[in-house]
């Protein structure tokens, strides 16, 4: 499988706080990678560095072998190819659902209005929100907002989609509808990098799991490896604590 993103020795410090240390991993086409780990382990920071919302302190991010941090690819163009779905949705409050899904296509990708609308409608239908095109974000429930946010990201036709705890801000009864959409995406071959606390999703949907602790990748492997025979004691402790919390 073709490599899309390669992260090499990535580090990030806030002041004197080393949040990410020597992160190394790669994302290939069709990968669905779950990133798990306790709060404060640096998962969000890692995604934000990959999407250039934070500037990495050192290390490399290679996108199709192009050095992103060295400016080998235009920052905005890179972002159109690496979509992001946020915990807090971040839908544009001043725009309708349809316009949320069109504005990037029209203004950034310079697509025609008709093409953009057709494309937006296709993805809105996919996430089950085609009926809501006229609504403003404030008129939607959390689960609906997140599904629109996913459609907005998909409408840009990115190569990779980053998810930062897409269900953490949702009421329990809405978590399922968003996870279902993500499952369908994963099955359709979308390349995804998902920070999540939903262990069932990590175990059943992803093909690789990364466990982070204290800013490092503590363990990486297939879901069976991580959930059935974790090698690191830290991973074991995290998973058992997690099971304890859940049951």
């Amino acid at each position, binding site marked *: 499988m073709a490599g899309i993103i390669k992260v090499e020795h990535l580090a990030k410090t806030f002041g004197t706080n080393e949040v990410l240390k020597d992160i190394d991993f790669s994302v290939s086409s069709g990968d669905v990678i779950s990133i798990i780990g306790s709060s404060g382990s640096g998962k969000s920071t890692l995604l934000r560095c990959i999407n250039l919302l934070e500037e990495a302190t050192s290390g490399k991010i290679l996108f199709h072998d192009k050095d992103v941090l060295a400016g080998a690819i235009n920052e905005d163009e890179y972002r159109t190819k690496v*979509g992001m779905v946020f915990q807090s949705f*971040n839908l544009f409050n001043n725009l309708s659902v349809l316009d949320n899904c069109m504005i*990037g296509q029209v*203004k*950034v990708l310079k697509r025609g209005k008709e093409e953009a609308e057709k494309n937006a409608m296709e993805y809105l239908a996919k996430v089950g929100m085609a009926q809501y095109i006229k609504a*403003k974000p404030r008129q939607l429930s959390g689960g609906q907002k997140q599904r629109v946010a996913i459609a907005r990201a998909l409408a840009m036709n990115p190569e990779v989609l980053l998810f930062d705890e897409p269900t953490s801000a949702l009421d329990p009864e809405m978590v399922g509808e968003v996870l279902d959409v993500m499952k369908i995406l994963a099955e359709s071959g979308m390349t995804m990098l998902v920070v999540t606390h939903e262990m069932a999703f990590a175990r059943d949907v992803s093909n690789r799991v990364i466990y982070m602790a204290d800013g490092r990748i503590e363990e990486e492997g297939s879901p069976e490896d991580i959930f059935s025979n974790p090698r690191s004691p830290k991973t074991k402790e995290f998973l058992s604590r997690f099971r304890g919390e859940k049951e």
Partner: protein
Amino acid sequence: MTISEMNFFQRMLYILQDYGGSLLAGAATTMAIALICTFLGCVIGFAVGLIQTTEPHKKDGAVKRGVLRVVKLILTAYVEVFRGTPMMLQAAFIYYGMSSVFGINLGMWSAAIIIVSVNTGAYMAETVRGGILSVDPGQREGARAIGMSHMQTMVYIVLPQALRNIMPQIGNNLIINIKDTCVLSIIGTVELFFTFRSISGALYTYFEAASVTMIIYFILTFTCSRILRAIESRMDGPANFDLATNDTLAFTSGLTKYNDKTGGMH
């Protein structure tokens, strides 16, 4: 019947009959200056507020950072000076200063418009800065994440929301401007207050002239505040939205219908 024999209402009527035309002209001048200057003040305010909230890009060199700092400093000075001194003195300062120091004779209109716009701009700059900062940073991140440039993010996402947030203050400024154009009478602008002074000077009926003029001012400000409210609720759009039908024909022709099983607010 002479003026001195009339009662209060007869005098007001007399003023309206004899000076209705000049009062109307004065009111029109006042409204024109207030509207034009509030608009120009907003343009200035948005430009200044936008620059004030611009952070230098990580990769910007020392020169660019330096220029930005100097520009911000000058703009801060502008805002503080114009907010910190009376507009009446600013009017005298600019109007008479221009003619005596530079030999430039600003016409009545251009002097009035420059003074009130620049003054409004100083207030609006702070308002716009606050309005921009009040927009959730997540909005900016959402826009950046789909590849929008800083400029696009501001123009399509942040500023429209900032504008909505500060609409009440824009309305406030318009109403203040309607009333405060009266200070322009110091440079001879024939607006509503100037008209009041002419009438009361000619007829010696201060009380009645003041009453009539106050009523006119109030009608102007009250109408404007109602219109602005209406604009605000228009900007908010309808409280409910219609669900689009699944009928593709209806969709392409822009037809939608309300589905009362699932529709409405959530």
